[in-house]
């Protein structure tokens, strides 16, 4: 592991502010959407300052668009870096996707064909980003609804190739692995078995929504499904424990219930450790695949 395990946290959203200030909830850290705080003044920065007095905060972005065919936006990166000075985020992450075509921002996370030349192009840009922001930089795997015939490799091969070529980190979204596995018909364990876990710096878990045709949408508005927790247990074991964020972005629960959802991750961690202790004693690096059998 390249980074400290911050424990269990939740994505910081506006409906949470009042509860955080009045109850100081027992979460270990918060994750912010960077772009929501790359502003010149007002409530966002004031609220963030208050949270920073009590908790570590990590930054997660949605608009870098590392795979966009346009060059890097250094004005955007400069503002990102300024915010990082305020939060002192131990790392920064964004998504392995494109977000704009020309000057048109889609405000969505869009997939690319998994080709050698695309991997090289994205890795070259990601390396520049990490150098520029002067902090560890991680890319998150997407949930996607299309796959391309022009792809030359699997998503997990592509993901690994970009991360290793750029010498950056993985922000592994376990729910996204599950959603894409259903949408594209692959075994999520094939994905998870292939990852270089020494590069996984943080994990996301979240809920999703099923469409009429059986496809899944990554909606972040429902409890994490058991299938996803099973995958999480595997990832937790392979990483030896990694900073984990529950994302909940719509149809908000009460804050206490949101925290309770996040704490399910802690229960899985504890159960896993107990189970491993029973099975292997001190040898917690046993065969990880056995856990999912």
């Amino acid at each position, binding site marked *: 592991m390249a980074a400290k395990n911050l424990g269990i946290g939740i994505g910081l959203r506006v409906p949470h502010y009042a509860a955080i200030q009045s109850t100081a909830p027992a979460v270990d850290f918060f994750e912010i959407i960077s*772009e929501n705080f*790359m*502003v*010149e*003044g*007002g*409530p*966002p920065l004031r609220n963030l300052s208050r949270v920073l007095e009590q908790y570590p905060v990590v930054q997660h972005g949605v*608009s870098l668009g590392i*795979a*966009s*065919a*346009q*060059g*890097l*936006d*250094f004005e*955007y*990166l400069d503002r990102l870096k300024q915010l990082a000075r305020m939060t002192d985020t131990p790392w920064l992450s964004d998504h392995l996707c*494109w*977000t*704009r*075509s*020309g*000057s*048109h*921002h*889609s*405000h*969505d996370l*869009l997939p*690319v*064909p998994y*080709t050698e*030349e*695309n991997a090289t*192009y994205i890795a*070259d*840009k990601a390396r*520049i980003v990490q*150098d*520029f922001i002067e902090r560890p930089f991680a890319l998150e795997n997407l949930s996607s*609804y*299309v*796959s*391309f*015939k*022009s792809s030359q490799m699997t998503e997990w091969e592509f993901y690994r190739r970009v991360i290793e070529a750029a010498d950056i980190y993985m922000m592994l979204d376990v729910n996204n692995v599950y959603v894409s596995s259903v*949408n*594209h*018909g692959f075994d999520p364990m094939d994905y998870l078995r292939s990852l270089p876990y020494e590069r996984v710096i943080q994990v996301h878990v979240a809920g999703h929504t099923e*469409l009429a*045709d*059986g*496809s899944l*949408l990554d909606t972040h508005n429902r409890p994490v499904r058991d299938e996803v927790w099973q995958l999480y247990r595997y990832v937790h074991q392979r990483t030896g424990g990694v900073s984990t964020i529950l994302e909940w972005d719509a149809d908000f629960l009460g804050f206490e219930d949101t925290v309770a959802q996040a704490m399910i991750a802690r229960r899985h961690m504890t159960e896993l450790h107990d189970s491993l202790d029973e099975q292997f004693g001190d040898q917690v690096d046993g065969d990880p695949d056995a856990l999912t059998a």
Partner: protein
Amino acid sequence: MRSPPESPIAPASLCRLQEAFGRAIAAPFVFDSTPDGQGGDYQLDIDSYDAELVADIRPRGTTSPHERLGIYNQQYWFRLLSTMQEEYPVTERILGTLEFNKMVMAYLTRFPPDSYTLTHLSDRLGQFLTHQHRWNRGLIRESAGLEYLFIRAFDAPERPAFHPSSQTEYHRDEILAQPIGLQPHWFLFEEHWNLVECRQAIKQEGVATITPVARHGHWAVYRGPDGPRAHRLNWLQARLLDALHRGTPLGQACDELVETLDGNDVQELAGNIGTWFARWVAMGWFASPSVEPAR
């Protein structure tokens, strides 16, 4: 300062794919209105998707490549429409949701999002409306204008506040001669309908329908401790604040205003200006003047 490194050049195939994909997801919906024009539904215009792009997308199960791409097309518009509905609740209720969505789609097709943040989504809505016969109505322009001020007030910069105690550091004459800056999050709004009250009824009471009535008045839209607010102004206050907002020094603004007033109004101004200023300072409207302390 070191210049940023050169970005790598994207593969040509990636450029082509993103251009076609970008056009597909931004393809406007086709609306089917009911005969009375009050209701209706929409359909994705999947036939407009680029054929080469569609041919590169794998079908899966019963879902065709068109339908897969349609998920992104739908999500793109749902995200933008829901953002605009949240930011423009008065305008949406005046137009009705279907017509509002048509207006937003026409606007964002003409002026697609060009910022990494959705905060700037409606920066050119006012400009768009003035060139659209269908929506270029005073009530629509005014409600959209008001709601845009609330967006800008939310996260505009804040300069150091002007406090009465700091006034002692300056000569009174210098204060009167200098423009007193209003905060960048402060805006003057002139209404011809009771749109601020309509907005408050929606935001605070959750009312589903509104009936704007004609009424002339002035409001200050500004950022309070918890977010944007509106504060009603009388016409004297509005004229004075408008002059200050335009950069007229306080002394000159008062002199010019007095010249246009009759005796009763002069009395009202003279009798109340101290109280008004104290209240405006307390609400954080003024930024510190940029005069040097007196030696």
